[in-house]
């Protein structure tokens, strides 16, 4: 069920009405669990079994870790959780990827292992990371295990963030289940505001841009240099609006129901360095990778070289998390290398950093340009199906050619509007863009956004880009 579908709006209204009418926290939670399972089954009921299996295993592991003091046994339980969750993820998401890679390697020997027709269960990457965060936190004794199985099941399957994040950690979510959530009108308004803004970004901006982006990427090499650049910037905007739109809707919906989710995007395209970008883009994933992978690998505690190695490894695996393709791995690697270089440069800058306003502005601007260039080139690999396609795209961008010119007016308008709003925020004037509860303009802007979204919604099925991950 898509957040942007009318069925979802009905479901949301039913949920809100129920939560308003029923005060008993236990009944509320069980109702939310039932709705969450229905929400997932709406796509394919058969894959509920995977969520349930994951839930049982991690609940069991959490309970066992609770009273276990033996280090080896604790480690064994942790491994059990890791093997189960990553095993499921590996089977359903990466089996064919590894087999295909093996087939390429075995091709000189004329061996082919074949592939399987496996359906990727929606949201598996997200809920796997979510449950892993629980087990690892319990293992590290940073979190008390959850005693109530139904609370834990709700944590794993809570529908606003189930299929595409944000990845909400157990220590953020579980304490919120202990007390009945407050459903004030102010919270409801804030939730609706965020939901409408997300809906607008996803449906009116991202889905309308998809037509342009998809058509150009389907025929990489046919378009001229300027068109290719334009479509790359358009894709950068599309993926941002698609994913941050989803996050906004998820956070907004949770807020209406009385839950607080952490922010997932913080104007990533105004980042002045690549590390700044990762503090602003898909924050729940980047912080997850930092806390559970980078730090587990040793972080920056074992010398410079190992720090760079850890950064690279983390980003490579982060790239692979996005999808079963070497282009994603390359995308992760590109960001990993850039992060390592940025770390090296910032270390040297600390010793001889710029002084004076003008120098700081120049440094900031050049940092922003370099960052955007890396991010945009990264998106080429992220969006392309193959390396050949990505290289062709890069050639079209950097080698002047006589391709077709297609400057989509909607894309240009969207980019300009987006640039203006970001510039306003970057200059510290975000108050101009805010929609306070009591301002007269707020209902006008929100209702207009909602109406325009409904009217100009493109025909056809437009799932969220991150559903495939």
């Amino acid at each position, binding site marked *: 069920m898509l957040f942007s579908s009318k069925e979802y709006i009905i479901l949301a209204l039913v949920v809100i009405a129920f939560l308003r009418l029923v005060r008993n926290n236990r009944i509320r939670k069980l109702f939310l669990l039932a709705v969450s399972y229905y929400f997932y089954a709406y796509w394919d009921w058969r894959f509920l079994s995977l969520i349930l299996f994951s839930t049982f295993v991690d609940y069991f592991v959490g309970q066992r870790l609770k009273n276990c003091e033996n280090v080896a046994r604790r480690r064994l339980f942790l491994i059990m959780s890791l093997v189960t969750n990553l095993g499921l993820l590996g089977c359903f998401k990466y089996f064919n990827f590894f087999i295909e890679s093996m087939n390429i390697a075995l091709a000189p020997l004329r061996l082919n292992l074949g592939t399987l027709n496996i359906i990727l269960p929606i949201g598996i990457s997200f809920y796997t990371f979510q449950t892993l965060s629980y087990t690892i936190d319990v293992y590290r004794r940073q979190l008390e295990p959850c005693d109530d199985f139904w609370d834990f099941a709700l944590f794993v399957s809570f529908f606003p963030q189930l299929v595409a994040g944000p990845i909400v950690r157990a220590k953020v979510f579980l304490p919120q289940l202990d007390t009945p959530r407050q459903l004030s009108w102010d919270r409801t308004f804030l939730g609706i505001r965020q939901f409408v803004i997300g809906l607008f970004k996803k449906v009116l901006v991202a889905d309308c841009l998809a037509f342009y982006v998809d058509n150009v990427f389907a025929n990489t090499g046919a378009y001229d240099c300027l068109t290719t650049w334009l479509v790359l910037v358009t894709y950068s905007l599309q993926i941002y609006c698609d994913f941050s739109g989803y996050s906004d809707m998820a956070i907004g919906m949770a807020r209406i129901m009385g839950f607080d989710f952490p922010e997932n995007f913080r104007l990533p395209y105004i980042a002045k360095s690549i590390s700044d970008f990762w503090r602003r883009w898909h924050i729940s994933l980047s912080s997850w990778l930092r806390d559970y992978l980078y730090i587990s690998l040793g972080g920056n505690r074992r010398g410079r070289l190992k720090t760079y190695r850890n950064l690279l490894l983390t980003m490579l695996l982060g790239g692979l998390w996005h999808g079963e393709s070497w282009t994603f791995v390359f995308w992760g690697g590109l960001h990993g290398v850039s992060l390592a270089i940025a770390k090296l440069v910032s270390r040297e800058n600390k010793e001889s950093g710029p002084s004076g306003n003008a120098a700081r502005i120049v440094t900031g601007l050049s940092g922003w340009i370099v960052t955007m260039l890396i991010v945009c080139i990264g998106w080429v690999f992220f969006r392309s199906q193959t390396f050949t396609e990505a290289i062709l795209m890069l050639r079209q961008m950097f080698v002047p050619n006589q391709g077709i010119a297609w400057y989509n007016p909607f894309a240009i308008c969207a980019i300009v509007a987006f640039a203006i709003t970001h510039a306003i925020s970057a200059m510290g004037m975000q108050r101009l863009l805010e929609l306070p509860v009591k301002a007269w303009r707020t209902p006008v802007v929100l209702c207009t956004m909602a*109406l325009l979204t409904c009217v100009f919604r493109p025909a056809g099925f437009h799932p969220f880009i991150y559903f495939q991950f």
Partner: protein
Amino acid sequence: MKEMHNKAVLQTVFRWFAGAGISVVLVWGITAFWLDSITVYEWNSTLGTFVIAPTQKYVWHSEGWAETQIGKYGINAIDDVTAVSGLKVAIWGDSFVAAFQVPDEDKMAQQVTRIWNESHDNELTAIGIGAMGQSPVDYYFGMPKYKELLGSVVAHFVILTNVSEVLPIPNAKECRFVSEPEYRFIESKWHPRHLKERPAVQAYHMEFLWTLGRELFLEPWRFRVGPVERDNPEDELPYVSTEPMAFLLDKFKKIEKEPIVFIYMPSVPSIENGAIQYDDPDAVHMELFAGECEKRGFSYINLGEKFEDLHRRTGRFPRGFWNWHPFLGHLNAHGHRIVAEAICEYIETYSDALFK
């Protein structure tokens, strides 16, 4: 205290109602400029069918950017076809002939009229008779009716865009060509919905409300759990053979003595995997149709080479618009020009026989 609280609640409610009202007005203004016009139909007793109501300015902004003046009997860009004197040719087709995407002066019929009359003394008027979703079966039923209306028509040109137009359509419901239990044409009993509401929607530019209503009430709802089996029989190409083509042509032969010329507009040039393609994927099948036309004395024109030539010479495509897609979709003014020139060329070649 309670009074103050009540006042605040009232203020909030008022603010939201007022905001919603203002936003409706805003959206009304925005969409009046951007959305395509709704089609207003009226019953035409002479033709025995529903046609687009005359005198409306039909605005099309989603693909191309144009206004079309609807004339009497639902004919585009001609006020009253019955008042047209002199020689006439009829151009039959679907939305490619209705051509809402291009201004009236660029539509193929108007270009034929202009090109011909600029260089010939004998005045000729081309009349485009086209509506979205129509097929040769509609033209078959329409020809006798329009003949009464138009008087002498020296030739008919039927625009085809793909091979499925000359084949039976599986699961046919309306005015269609069916193959079961035998080949036959079924005349449409089509009745547009919401006839009364459409004029008001169009007059007050309230297409946005129409779109919202359609989304809410006409699109199906689904609440049952998945997975959902998706099948789309319309995407399947019917079995291609010459038998139905022959049946279709024989039917046309029986109703019309004047020449009928089939003009095929392939979807070329197109782009596949980043490279320009001039090869028409339907070419083999359309050759079969061309062969059947030849056997029965129908003329057949394939515009593939002309479309290719346009692109090779100028880099332009016959289809596509600046606000849609650069090479897909409906014909643009260049495409209409090529069709018009082909029609003029045909008339020129056979003028002795046509104008006898």
